[in-house]
């Protein structure tokens, strides 16, 4: 019950007028960011991060995390009304959400999506409330080898259960590590990969990489489709909301199953995108109406939205307790913590109680506020998408440039951002995953440091990673996850059927 009193204390931190205003501002900004093409959760938070440097850290993270919740909600609006997934994890929502909108059931689809999102997030917040302190307490025993092992597990999950070609995911991830290595080596004090350039001395800032890869890259991808969006209108009134809520009670089993999948996938950093696909796939197989999925089944909206939100929220658990973000946006938030002088990891729960529990309490309030805001304001948010792209595109580009500039007050960073933008465009088109690249860029220095420290302990022998039961288990698990596609294919072959579980891989 120690945690409950800590949580109540956290509510005390959040429930000040200043923080409540920040929650509302954050949610509204977040939905707008989620709706606009070229601005997503990750780079929206990256652009706004420099603005929060002057705020108290607890207020800053409350606002930024609320932007994240808002962006998660916003993704559903574009998927359903415009068939444009605002974020990768909303792709599965378009399968049934957009057909529903085409049949004139947009209100129903949106209510189902928002409510499911809320339910998924709420389950994940409860999981965080009770599990995070335990994980943090457990992780206090971690040494460098264990920390590297956990990071290794995170990266193996990307290759093993993430989507896309393994070789490309590996390449993208390693590019992130290589970019992180540029500059001063903090352990030996030597310069590396700078090639005599003064500009490279500072290394690559992940905020600028995120703004370029996700912001500029997204604009270049979007412009290809032409300048106009065609969308459906949505009428949301209290009658539709209540009717849909009544209908939704029938899908309680799907909701709970999807929330569990989401929490699991979010904590083991496979992320929200595979969670939404897996949840959709399983719901399709389990549902009596599975054959009609894809034609506008409400259950096909419930499953991916619940899982995506649960995963997106649960991704903050490993970020807070272990310092390992489960999603690109969580990675940006983690970078924020470092800027505010807070070291994410188990000690955060001991040393920064106000901060941690304030954040967790704000997740409860933020999601309730978010649900109310999106349900009441959908038409206005949808109207944003009707602003022609030839107005939106230059404005977003300017905002991205401002965001990149304010990180270090350097004009050269705007150039770096443009460069990352072109890379992001090409990588997206060739299906290189950007999330592992960003995560590796954020975690690169830490991962390298824990690797080197572990190696020091064992004098350069990899046996350090199998030195005790704990680290050995995590490493073995990582290797299994890494080769999971091969293992499951082999298993299917042994069973003699061709029914390999391919949902997570597609």
């Amino acid at each position, binding site marked *: 019950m120690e945690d409950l009193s800590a949580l109540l204390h956290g509510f005390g931190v959040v429930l000040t007028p200043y923080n409540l205003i920040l929650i509302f501002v954050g949610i509204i900004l977040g939905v707008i960011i989620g709706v606009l093409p070229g601005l997503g959760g990750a780079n929206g938070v990256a652009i706004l991060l420099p603005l929060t440097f002057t705020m108290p850290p607890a207020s800053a993270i409350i606002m930024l995390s609320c932007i994240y919740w808002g962006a998660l909600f916003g993704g559903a609006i574009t998927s359903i009304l415009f068939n444009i997934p605002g974020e990768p994890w909303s792709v599965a929502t378009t399968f049934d959400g957009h057909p529903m909108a085409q049949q004139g059931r947009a209100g129903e689809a949106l209510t189902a999506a928002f409510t499911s999102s809320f339910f998924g997030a709420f389950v994940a917040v409860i999981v965080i409330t009770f599990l995070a302190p335990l994980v943090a307490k457990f992780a206090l025993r971690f040494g460098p080898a264990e920390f590297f092992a956990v990071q290794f597990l995170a990266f193996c999950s990307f290759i093993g259960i993430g989507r896309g070609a393994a070789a490309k995911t590996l390449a993208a991830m390693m590019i992130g590590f290589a970019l992180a290595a540029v500059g001063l*080596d903090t352990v030996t004090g030597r310069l590396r990969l700078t090639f005599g350039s003064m500009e490279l001395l500072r290394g690559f800032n992940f905020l600028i990489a995120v703004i370029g890869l996700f912001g500029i890259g997204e604009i270049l991808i979007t412009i290809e489709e032409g300048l106009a969006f065609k969308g459906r209108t949505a009428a949301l009134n209290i009658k539709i909301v209540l009717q849909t809520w009544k209908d939704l009670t029938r899908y309680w089993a799907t909701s709970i199953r999807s929330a569990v999948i989401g929490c699991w996938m979010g904590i083991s950093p496979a992320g929200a995108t595979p969670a939404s696909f897996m949840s959709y796939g399983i719901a399709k197989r389990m549902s009596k109406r599975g054959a009609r999925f894809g034609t506008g089944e409400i259950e096909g909206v419930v499953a991916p939205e619940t899982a995506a939100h649960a995963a997106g929220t649960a991704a903050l658990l490993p970020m807070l307790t272990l310092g390992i973000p489960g999603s690109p946006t969580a990675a940006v938030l983690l970078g924020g913590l470092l800027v505010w002088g807070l070291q994410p990891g188990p000690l955060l729960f001991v040393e920064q109680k106000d901060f941690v529990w304030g954040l967790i309490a704000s997740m409860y309030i933020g999601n309730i506020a978010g649900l109310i805001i999106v349900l009441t304001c959908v038409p206005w948010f949808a109207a944003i998408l009707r602003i022609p792209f030839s107005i939106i595109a230059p*404005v977003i580009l300017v905002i991205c440039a401002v965001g990149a500039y304010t990180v270090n007050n350097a004009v050269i960073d705007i150039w770096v951002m443009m460069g990352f933008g072109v890379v992001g465009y090409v990588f997206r088109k060739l299906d290189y995953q950007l999330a592992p690249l960003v995560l590796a860029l954020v975690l690169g220095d830490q991962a390298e440091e824990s690797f080197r420290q572990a190696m020091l302990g064992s004098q350069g022998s990899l046996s350090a990673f199998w030195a005790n039961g704990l680290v050995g288990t995590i490493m073995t698990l990582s290797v299994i996850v890494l080769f999971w596609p091969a293992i499951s294919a082999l298993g299917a072959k042994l069973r003699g059927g061709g029914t390999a579980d391919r949902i997570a891989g597609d």
Partner: protein
Amino acid sequence: MDGAPQSTSKDSLVSRRTMEIVVAILLMGGGGVVMFDSWRVGIGWQTEGPQSGYFPFYVGLLIVAASAVTLVQAILSRQSASVSFVSKPQFKLVLSVLIPAIIFVIAVRYIGLYMSAAIFIAVFMTWLGRYGWRMTVPIAIGIPVLLFFVFELWFLLPLPKGPLETWLGY
């Protein structure tokens, strides 16, 4: 699934297969550079522990290895030769964003961010969006003014300024 829908239209500028090969070779080159520089600063072990290149060397090695796999896959793939990476009209649209954006970034150094932003938005709206001045001017002026209030005055984050701002006393 993330990417834009792929077309097999005749006006393809470059095939997906070509781009796969080019990118894989570029990445292999990049990985090679990382390996080389790591080797230069030392990939071994010194008295106080691993040298600076110890970790990045293997990172570079993995980039080369992973891209080699992608390269072989792309060369062997028959299907992606007919798939377009980008068509000519699409590429034109991409350039129509990219080139003004590059000019905008160049201009920031000389006339400041606010002026550049105003001109960039105005050019984009009139040229690509075909908007009249009545629609363009308020947005092209309003956004930089808004940025000025938010960043310069409210959050006290100075943005690059040029002669106009100096003349106005900032």
